């Protein structure tokens, strides 16, 4: 065999290329997408959100550490356990919605369409349970901390139910005009019900339903006073 046989050399090296190709194919790698500016930006956003999450978790960790410190101070006798537990109970009562709260916020007065004739369907003229629910959801999105309708506090289990000409909240019947009191950032709450394109704006402009929000320096939201009991739900043991 001649030493410089081009065909043989090329064939031999083609075999090598083939081996490489086959071993590459065997690995079945997913497509390597080229790095684009968009993908870099997406990755950046992801990193930012993960970092925010980490920050929040660190805050929670700090809170827990502070709690641990207070508990340890009970052990050393610096603080009274009864005081701490009472503060805890009060805090939980407030969070559960059993206490009357005050703070800056808005008050919305809603009443049925009494003036303009917009059609023949009387359902378009009146406020429905869904209208109230949507408004309340918008308020919660805007960071509402406490909400009441006609002095019925909205808590975690509160229902808003259609009851013919009235609506039922917390098992109590309430009728128009509805007075919704909300505590939260007044500007945000105002925007949530009256900015163009919001549900409240649509109700007002298209259906002619009365919806008047007012900013108030102090809104008093009454606490919930009814019964509250879980029959089915039970707390999960830690580490379960």
């Amino acid at each position: 065999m001649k030493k410089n046989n081009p065909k043989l050399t090329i064939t031999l090296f083609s075999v090598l290329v083939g081996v490489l190709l086959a071993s590459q194919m065997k690995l079945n790698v997913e497509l390597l997408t080229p790095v684009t500016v968009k993908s870099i930006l997406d990755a950046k956003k992801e990193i930012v959100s993960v970092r925010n999450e980490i920050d929040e978790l660190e805050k929670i960790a700090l809170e827990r550490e502070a709690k641990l410190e207070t508990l340890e101070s009970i052990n050393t006798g610096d603080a009274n356990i009864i005081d701490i537990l009472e503060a805890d109970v009060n805090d939980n009562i407030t969070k559960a919605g059993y206490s009357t709260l005050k703070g800056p916020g808005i008050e919305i007065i809603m009443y049925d369409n009494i003036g303009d004739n917009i059609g023949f369907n009387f359902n378009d003229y009146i406020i429905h349970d869904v209208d109230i629910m949507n408004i309340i959801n918008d308020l919660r999105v805007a960071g509402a901390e406490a909400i009441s309708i006609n002095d019925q506090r909205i808590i975690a289990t509160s229902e808003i139910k259609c009851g013919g000409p009235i609506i039922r909240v917390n098992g109590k019947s309430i009728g128009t005009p509805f007075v919704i009191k909300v505590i939260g950032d007044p500007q945000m709450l105002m925007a949530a019900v009256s900015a163009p394109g919001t549900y409240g704006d649509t109700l007002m402009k298209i259906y002619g339903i009365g919806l008047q929000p007012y900013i108030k320096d102090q809104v008093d939201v009454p606490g919930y006073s009814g019964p509250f009991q879980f029959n089915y739900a039970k707390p999960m043991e830690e580490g379960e």
Partner: protein
Amino acid sequence: MVYALIGILIGATIGFLLPYTYNTAYTLYISVAILACLDSVFGGIRANLENKFNTKIFISGFFGNAILAAFLAYIGDRLGFPLYYAAIFTFGSRLFDNFARIRRLWLFKEKPAKTEK
């Protein structure tokens, strides 16, 4: 051309039959290297058809290009900049250049008769 294809087929069969695999982290480097090798093979075929084939140049090009391409890909990975594009564009376009030349040599039989040894 035909013997290169046969060689690649034989190699692929061997490669599929061999139990060896490598770490998936190296796939980028290997694929760029494969492109460089393919380009070398095409270059070799063309040189052969033009009767200018030199084994030293072929072998050095085969391994040198492959290593350089893989190295570029590696450096690019380290620097966070896709340097292997350079290898892909260069070898890709050369591949087509070589193939175009091979086609012309084949179709118009420009090659001298004495090439067939």
